[in-house]
């Protein structure tokens, strides 16, 4: 697994460009307890129904 911390600062990270990609350190704080899902409106009420078909727009 690539460790963005060890990358040169201007290298793109995977799908993202080099300008402030989401921080791997912040992501790694997550312990996958799932508490967020219980309060997330998207997950709680609509995860499946709200997903738009790929490419579908307004």
């Amino acid at each position, binding site marked *: 697994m690539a460790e963005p911390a060890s990358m040169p600062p201007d290298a793109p990270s995977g799908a993202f460009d080099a300008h402030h990609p*989401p*921080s791997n350190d912040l992501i790694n704080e997550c312990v996958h307890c799932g508490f967020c899902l219980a309060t997330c409106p998207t997950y709680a009420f*609509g995860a499946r129904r*709200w997903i738009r078909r790929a490419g579908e*727009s*307004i």
Partner: protein
Amino acid sequence: MKLGLEGQVRLDPTFVNHMDNCLGCMACLTSCPSGVKYDKLIEATRAQIERNYPRPVPDRFLRRMIFDIFPRPERLRLLLGPLGMYQRSGLQSLMRRSGLLKLLPASLRAMENLTPSAPQKNKANGAALPERVAAQGEPRLSVGLLLGCVQRVFFPEVNAATARVLAAEGCEVIIPRDQCCCGALMIHAGEEKAALDYARRTIDAFERAQVAIVVSNAAGCGSSMKDYGYLLHDDPKYSERAKAFSAKCRDISEVLTELEPRAPRHPIPLKVAYHVSCHLQHAQGVRTQPRAVLGQIPELQILEAAEGALCCGSAGIYNLVRPGPAQELGERKVRHVLATAPDIVASGNPGCLLQLRSGIRLAGSQVPVVHMVEVVDASIRGLPAESLLKR
């Protein structure tokens, strides 16, 4: 996001769709025991999407329109004339009754539903507020007031009430003429460059005003301004200034709790359902203050609706770009709020006010929705409770 960093997924429609589905309500920040800073993650990811993902043309057009109009009060104000004519000529009620609206694309229909009644010219207008409102009695604090873009155009009476309440509490209120949009809508939607330009200009304007604190009565704006220190951390010219600015920012409910009340509160014998906006309770961690401020008003009964931590569906531009889910959430919120049988509904963010008003009207109810500070204002001025019911 992790898979994105590892290069296992691309910024494709599936990925973008998941990120678009997030309301940015930050309820997860409140519930996360590990303190994951999801706000920073989603904002960074959305900025990546807007830079690197070509959205379909209608999406791009809608977003462009939103970002060209909403952060520019002078443009937003131009809509008021036609909007007033549309509403007062009876065309609006005709459109709504006849079902012609159903022919519009969902986003435009959502916009039509959300538009508030165009403020009458004779109402106290935000633009007409003087640059300086003197404190009543011994001045205790010099306060800069952010007018907000949507707030100053659609809810000038909220800004007028905020200035009156602050002055009555002994604050000298400075309202910089050259203040612009704070950039909140853009920050939350990934339009990073425009957002940071607005942030820098906001810092400039309030630095010139030399105020001790900067007050916002729009939770979305306040939450972004408190984040400037982080957003501009690698801007050599602004990083320190942004940090200092963010440290000065307060929501109106925070200021009113921090200051020992000086102006006497007159009774308001009403039942109010208070909805804490997400950007107050989740993003800013301001949960108890608005109720504490309302609690100082004699005879005002504060009601608790079920699922208080749940978003009303407004969520910045979410109710315009994802009208279906936004309306579902709005209906749910309104159902809970109306179940408490309130005389009025109060909140602390223009987006929530618009969403709640529209939802309550669609539910066939006429309960008025006001900003929390308008209730405080009415109490300090000793206005009759009926003045709040005529909104």
